[in-house]
């Protein structure tokens, strides 16, 4: 009898705990769906006026009644893509050094540094970018204000590097010990170990990490807001000032509620949500396929 009493009590506790955890999971999921719903509902009136395509693909010229967000979509994609391109070789090299090439002591110190980098607030990067990088780019390029896609991408590359590096390291660490031992047994060098064993085994992890940090770059606001210049034009060159979707939302959210400027930020939000969701989904799919093989 005593025993069944405890049994019952434990069961009850377990049910309660399970219910509680289920609730928190549910809230998280609902929140994601609700936010999307909010974006769609608030953005819907724009589509009703038969100008959805104009808004998505047109130019931004409030003077002539044009509120197209295409320049911001281009700005976002340019800056994010370029930052990944810059960050990728840097991150891959860093991860390879930490996991395979470097001596253990130095590698540990470097890994700690990278972990610390994840904690640096974005505003610090933005600040340093404005005072050090922007004048440098302006003087080197000789034209423009220095607030441009290139400057923003360079800073953003540093910002997303830790995400990429830590993801790569995680993936490298999953390579079976026996494979690495086999390379040593064959008398292979560290570089050979990296090139012929580790990298081929981690292709999926590398792709996933890269795609996820692309998602991180897409969502960042402050770096672009402070450094990219925020001009609303379709950028033609890396030295052009550009505005990202996120920066647009930040800049316009204080404008008059009734204005078209203000309404356009819901479309920006929806587009940003969609792009980021697709990117994350893509990354997860690749990852999934990786573990099945």
């Amino acid at each position: 009898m005593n025993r069944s009493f405890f049994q019952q009590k434990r069961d009850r506790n377990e049910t309660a705990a399970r219910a509680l955890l289920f609730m928190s999971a549910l809230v998280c999921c609902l929140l994601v769906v609700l936010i999307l719903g909010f974006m769609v509902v608030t953005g819907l009136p724009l589509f009703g006026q038969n100008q959805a395509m104009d808004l998505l693909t047109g130019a931004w010229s409030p003077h002539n009644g044009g509120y197209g967000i295409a320049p911001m979509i281009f700005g976002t994609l340019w800056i994010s893509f370029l930052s990944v391109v810059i960050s990728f070789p840097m991150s891959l090299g860093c991860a390879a050094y930490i996991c395979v090439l470097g001596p253990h002591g130095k590698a540990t110190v470097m890994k700690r540094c990278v972990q610390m980098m994840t904690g640096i607030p974005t505003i610090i990067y933005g600040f340093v970018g404005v005072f050090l990088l922007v004048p440098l780019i302006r003087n080197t390029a000789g034209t423009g204000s220095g607030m441009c896609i290139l400057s923003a991408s360079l800073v953003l590359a540093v910002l997303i590097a830790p995400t990429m590096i830590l993801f790569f390291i995680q993936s490298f660490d999953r390579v079976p010990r026996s494979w690495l031992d086999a390379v040593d047994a064959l008398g292979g060098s560290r570089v050979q170990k990296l090139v012929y064993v580790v990298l081929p085994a981690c292709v999926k992890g590398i792709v996933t990490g890269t795609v996820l940090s692309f998602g991180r770059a897409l969502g960042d606001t402050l770096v672009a807001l402070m450094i990219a210049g925020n001009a609303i034009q379709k950028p033609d060159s890396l030295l052009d000032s550009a505005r990202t979707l996120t920066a647009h939302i930040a800049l316009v959210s204080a404008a008059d509620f009734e204005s078209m400027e203000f309404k356009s930020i819901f479309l920006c939000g929806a587009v940003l949500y969609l792009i980021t969701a697709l990117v994350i989904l893509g990354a997860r799919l690749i990852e999934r396929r990786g573990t099945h093989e």
Partner: protein
Amino acid sequence: MIKRAMVATVTLCTALLVALPIHANSLDRFAGLSGDLKIAGGTAHIPVVKEAAKQIMTLNPNIRITIAGGGSGAGIKQVGEGLIDIGNSGRRPSDKEITSYGLSLHKWAIDGVAVVVNPSNTVTALTQGQLAQIFSGKITNWKALGGKDRGINIYTRDASSGTRSVFWKKALKKGEIAPSANFVVSNGAMKTAVANDPGAIGYMSAGFVDQRLTPVALDGVTPDAASIRNGTYKVARGLFSNTRGEAQGLSKQFIDFLLSDQGQAIVKEKGFIPVN
């Protein structure tokens, strides 16, 4: 939110360390009061409001005043929604804003909007026509205006800015601003941008102009205290502190203080034109 983080929220608890001001008479109104006063909005207002807050909190540590930026639009919106006690704006709120939020307006200074360039720039006078052509992107090199052979980098503010709306109406005569213009988020950020960029042109609160920038004479009139006061420099506006409904309690005392002799002295000291 992000903008508010950028234009750093200034909590002035450290003001306790500063010595008591000599003329404490206008500050007597704060004796015995306590509580929080939240102020946000126009970035031109910040130097004056900050100094006033410092004096008040030095006298009476039971009063806590927080000051944030965000732009005039944000100030009006936030005070209208009851998020803050005083919303500053560098333009007169529109009739629609006044009626829908039930705002009451308190103008305590007059401020010019000065066109500014980098000190290394030799172009220090422009006509209104030239200015409009620069901002619309028709003139793209300082050489065309008699300056050095250097590209013109335009800096402007976002739609929330009162400085922008005044500049656009009175200096550009509602003319177009080129899509290549860079956007900055406050008067302070404008100062940093123009002071660091030799090819820059921008516009900002005349009270913010210092030796790191050169103010440009517009149609022959340099924006200074005298020309703004007597109206020969046309691009000017009032600095407003708005409350929802009639100002009450701490908000009322604060605004009354800004309008007192002592408050107006701060206004003058910070480079703005007193109203009284």
